[in-house]
């Protein structure tokens, strides 16, 4: 391959990022931070670039803002040399598993979740949870639960035939955003210096509040959330502790965005979601236009 072809290939690779993650281009970096493309450049693969993760004590010494930023980078949420932290701002995953839910009468219903698609926007914040549920002896039901800002509604199809739900549903639904690994990391970044770091058995924990509800995030050795606890007042469950646990992180798309393959949510000790993740998309096209039947909210207030 000629030098020109190499240059062209590298240039085009930059312009074709959706597939380029698997491309191992021949590059090296100069002292000035420039990247050299060409025949003399050594290999530079993902495996070549092993990140050195500071120890828990080192992270604690560096303070919450820096430590959270380092953790956020490991979660794929810090991008470009200027360390942009808002670039990864929507996320979607698809999963299946089981769900348990308490009804208004206080009785629990158990479901098999044949399909769950959870799309979220950290900025608005907003989420859309589309589920195919099979209860005991019942037909398959299809539900789409949406929340954006302070409002919530259910949809027949994504974006279509929205029916308003009580505002308390918005709080309940958006809580799920902050219980996801990237959602909790986003919230921890927003907490900034108000976050508190501690060492739990050699692991870093980050404590902060979301709307006055205390949150504690326990990270694994790769600085990925392993357990997220949130003390919340839930309109469904009352004062309770929500606990999300994550395992089997995987970079689903090759964008350096690790996401768990296994997730479990508990409310007050009872498992409410137990999911196997099939796929995950970083920054998908997800939007949340309010149904025309709902009162307009001039602008969803970001956190």
């Amino acid at each position, binding site marked *: 391959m000629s030098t*020109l072809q190499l240059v062209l290939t590298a240039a085009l690779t*930059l312009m074709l990022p959706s*597939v*380029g*993650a698997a491309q191992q281009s021949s590059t090296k970096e100069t002292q000035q931070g420039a990247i050299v493309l060409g025949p003399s450049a050594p290999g530079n693969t993902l495996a070549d670039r092993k990140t050195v993760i500071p120890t828990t004590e080192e992270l604690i010494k560096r303070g919450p803002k820096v430590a959270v930023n380092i953790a956020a980078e490991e979660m794929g949420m810090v991008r470009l040399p*200027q360390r942009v932290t808002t670039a990864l701002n929507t996320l979607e995953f698809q999963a299946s598993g089981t769900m348990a839910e308490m009804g208004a009468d206080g009785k629990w219903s158990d479901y098999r979740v044949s399909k769950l698609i959870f799309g979220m926007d950290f*900025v608005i914040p907003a989420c859309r949870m589309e589920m195919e549920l099979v209860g005991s002896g019942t037909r398959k039901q299809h539900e789409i639960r949406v929340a954006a800002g302070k409002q919530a509604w259910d949809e027949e199809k994504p974006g279509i035939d929205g029916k308003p739900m009580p505002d308390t549903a918005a709080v309940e639904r958006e809580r799920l955003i902050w219980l996801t690994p990237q959602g909790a990391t986003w919230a921890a970044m927003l907490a900034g210096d108000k976050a508190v770091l501690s060492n739990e058995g050699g692991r870093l924990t980050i404590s902060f509040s979301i709307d006055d509800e205390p949150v504690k995030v326990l990270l694994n050795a790769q600085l990925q959330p392993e357990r997220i606890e949130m003390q919340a007042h839930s309109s469904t469950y009352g004062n309770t502790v929500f606990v999300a646990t994550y395992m089997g992180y995987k970079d689903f798309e090759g*964008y350096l965005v690790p996401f768990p393959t296994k997730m479990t949510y508990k409310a007050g000790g009872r498992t409410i979601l137990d999911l196997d993740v099939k796929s995950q998309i970083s920054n998908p096209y997800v939007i949340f236009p309010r149904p025309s039947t709902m009162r307009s909210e001039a602008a969803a207030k*970001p956190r």
Partner: protein
Amino acid sequence: MKNLIWSCFFQLFSALFLAVCVSAQAPTGVATSLSSGRDPVYSPADPKEATPHRPDGQPDLDGVWTIRTTANNDGGGNLPSVIEKDGSVAAFLPSRKGGLYSAEIDLAIVSKGDRNKPMYKPEYWAKVRELELHSLKTDPQYKCLPYGVPRMGEPQQIIQQTNQLVFLYSGYPSLSNAYRVIPLNRPHDAGQLEEETYKGDSVGHWEGDTLVVDTIGFNDETWLTAKLGYFHSTDLHVVERFTRRGNKMEYQVTVDDPKVLLQPWVWEPRTMALNPDPNAKLPEDYPCSERDVDDTDVR
């Protein structure tokens, strides 16, 4: 061959430009503790600067205009690249952890994370995602189709006459030294509208010191931007506004397509800068077919 090398540089430069442009489109209202990377690079025209006028009284838009650069933001279009003696090319790419790998995937994430999205009707959400997912095959640029309006963006050169302006474009294979003729103060050409073209039928008028270019009469074969699957219908209506202040020019675009969009899509304003070199001219683009490469080479 020279053109090919230049175009390679342009693409590298464009990648850098894209990164900063997109990162400049920070989520509005996000707490300042999150870094959007916006402030260091975004330099709009100073509204206090006067608008130069021509002898006929019109604002003077004539000249070679460049996109803003990231390196020094002077609009000079300096390419931060050098060719080493061994044939290697050093380019100041947005590498975070070192190496092309992080630069490339960071650009992808930043591009996809642009907060300013067109609001498609729900029945088209799946289509947008599908087009984006397979953009290597579905993006019209990879078929050497013209970018069309508005994707071709701001012109790199404007030639102005009292009754019309000519926009010249250069730099991307799909631009291929494209041009647009913008007649002033006349209605759309019915015959041209029927043809439904890539660039549509443009007419312009002045609103104070702002040139307003109204374009309709499109086919539906182009995308609104690169890679993200933002298609449109033949009902596309684009309004571009050019406001010169000093030697900078604000370029604003509003895209409407009531057939597929819930509401008009307003682009983030861009700032063009006048090239001060009186001998400045646009390079000749190489034919699009020459840029084609084996896709397997970049997978």
